[in-house]
């Protein structure tokens, strides 16, 4: 008998856990999924692109210092990596500037 009781308790607990979000916020201001909106997405993307570009540059430098890449190979590649990093930084500036002005526009 005790097993059936335990089963019932488990069932009730489970139902409560599943209903929890609705019990906590019976009437929320917004039920919209706070997934990132496009502006936020592009900001995060730009940040990630910058990180990637800088990391690649860093890795190239480290490889060169450790002797994994010869001077010739280093010179051949470093230029394009630096350009990629600069472009990523510019893109990030653009996106965050747009984001700030967007937020300002929404507030007003």
């Amino acid at each position, binding site marked *: 008998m005790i*097993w059936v009781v335990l089963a019932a308790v488990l069932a009730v607990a*489970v139902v409560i856990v599943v209903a929890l979000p609705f019990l906590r916020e019976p009437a929320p201001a917004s039920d919209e999924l706070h997934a990132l909106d496009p502006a936020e997405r592009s900001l*995060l993307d730009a940040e990630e692109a910058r990180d990637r570009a800088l990391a690649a540059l860093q890795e190239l430098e480290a490889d060169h210092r450790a002797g994994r890449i010869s001077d010739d190979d280093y010179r051949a590649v470093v230029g394009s990596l630096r350009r990629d990093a600069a472009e990523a930084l510019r893109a990030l500036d653009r996106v965050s500037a747009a984001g700030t002005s967007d937020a300002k526009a929404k*507030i007003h």
Partner: protein
Amino acid sequence: MAELGRAALLLTLGLSAYALLVGGYAAWRGRRRLAHSARNALIASFFSTLVAALVLVAGFLRDDFSLAYVADHSSKALPTPYKLSAFWGGQEGSLLLWLLVLTGYAALAVWLARKRARDLVVWVTPVLGGIALGFSWLLVAVSSPFDVIAAPADGSGLNPSLQNPYMVVHPVALYLGYVGLAVPFAFAMGALLSGRTDERWIVATRRWTIVAWTALGIGQLLGAHWAYVEVGWGGYYAWDPVENAALMPWLAATAFLHSVMIQEKRGMLRVWNVTLVSLAFCLSLFGTFLTRSGVVTSIHSFSKSTIGPWFLGFIVVAVVFAIGMIWYRLPQLRTTAKLESLVSREAAFLYNNLLLVALSLTILWGTAWPMVSEAVRGETMVVGRPYFDFFLRIFGLPLLLLMGIGPLVAWRRASLRGLARTFAWPAAVALATGVALIALGAGSSTPGLVAYTFSAFVLASIVHEFARGTAARRALTGEPIPTAFGRLIGRNRRRYGGYVVHAAVVLLAIGIAGSSAYDSVSEGRLAKGESLAVGGYTLTYRSLGEREGPNATEVRAVLDVRRGQKDLGTVKAGKNAYSVEQQVSNEVGIRTDYLTGEDLFVIAEQVNDDGTVFFRIFVKPLVNLIWLAGIVFLLGSVIALWPDAREERRLATRYANARERSDTPATT
């Protein structure tokens, strides 16, 4: 008690269905609380499955033979640890273990990723829910561990070959691996479903993949060790379908681990990566299907199995779904980044991938051939060792070499001249090793010699990498060598952890080459006092003894071991006769030479009534490197997995900032 177990599984069924259907709806329509609720359901499904698992454990510990499953796999005399491991000794229990690990991983994954990968998690929840639904359906409707019978006086006992410590760890490790692949798969599908086809899903699942892959690798090594010491036929891998079942997803996962690095660094190979992770997961399902349904033995046993058709159905659903999603998102997945040079790290990784996937598919083909040939030709054809060995050499040896080349090649483009300079030293070491080995007689086996030479190359390049990195650090910081070495690894955990793992694979290769290409075997019937010579050893059969163990009669033959003039002690080999299970098992005698890594492996094949014993004796050089490799492998993985505190803080701030920013406009 069975009612609680059944109820708990029924709850898991309901919760998974909820997570799948409601979670899917919530993700599609963007309903926050509903998505949260579905996530809670997935997490709750772990707890209800845990309850079911605990009920089964209690059944075993209490010798509750009214549960058919307990009666079939346990007995009163069974030692307690084996009562616990009997949980997964049969089909229903191992399915429950699968589900337990799945819901555990699922709960952890969605909980950990809930802030950082929110737009992914809303879709990951229904995917994981769907997989859990499949397994809980099997457990509720097809193959329940809680079937009740009139309790017999005692259970049937556990198969003697499963009564050893390996049974406690090997299946669990394998399942942690098999099931673990579901998480990256779910995130990949989540990425496709949500349209976030960039690297987000890979970064989120990086650690999961390594954990699953490590567990699967360790699980297989445990299995190999089990086969070696306990099953005792003289080897550790037989290309048995059940063994291949674990190897195939592991190879695919290895390929995946490498190709995601390319996507992270260069944004390339997006289609390939989602395909590869889907392949790994489907192979994992297929592997479970193979092991559980015995389908490869004969197509006839397949139709007798209740679970086979369901499993096949799941695999078909998973494959169709994955292909469908990839096809649907193909435009978003395509990138403009291209392979710049055939001599670059990207290219090296690509070759690595091709070889690994090719090997995995050849094994798949060989393993599935009996089923396919029966369906197509009406005649079941079985594929033997030579097929697998051939392809292992063809793909494995180049892979070995590539392990040494890859890390030394630069990204994007590497000049051949630069390469030649980098490879000079390791290549010289390899060449010298090769020559020395030929002088020592290793030329008797060409694949063995090649394996050894390639291994020397890889080891030399790994040592070179560590040395160069430390030297470069010292040049910059002036630290003493130990500090520089430690900091080097600490700042580049993935890279150097990876190198340690490569070293482990090399040890594995050397161990396999030594014990299969250069082993010796001798056999014969000996009367007391007679000897057998093998591989430099002489063994003399001295005596035969018998004693009563806890649940078996143990017969052991004692042999003296000599090498030349030196007395090396004794080794025992014999058989155990299990009373309850009415079975006999081989108990081999192994003498390990720790200096050379060599094993003397004695099998008492047949104990005759007149006191003579037919012995089969192997000498297996370097075989212990295989087990050492397992430890090094684990070490390397732990290094690679170890979180970098600075990196974690940086990422945490970024996602917290994003949340702040996104909260402001949305609530206006």
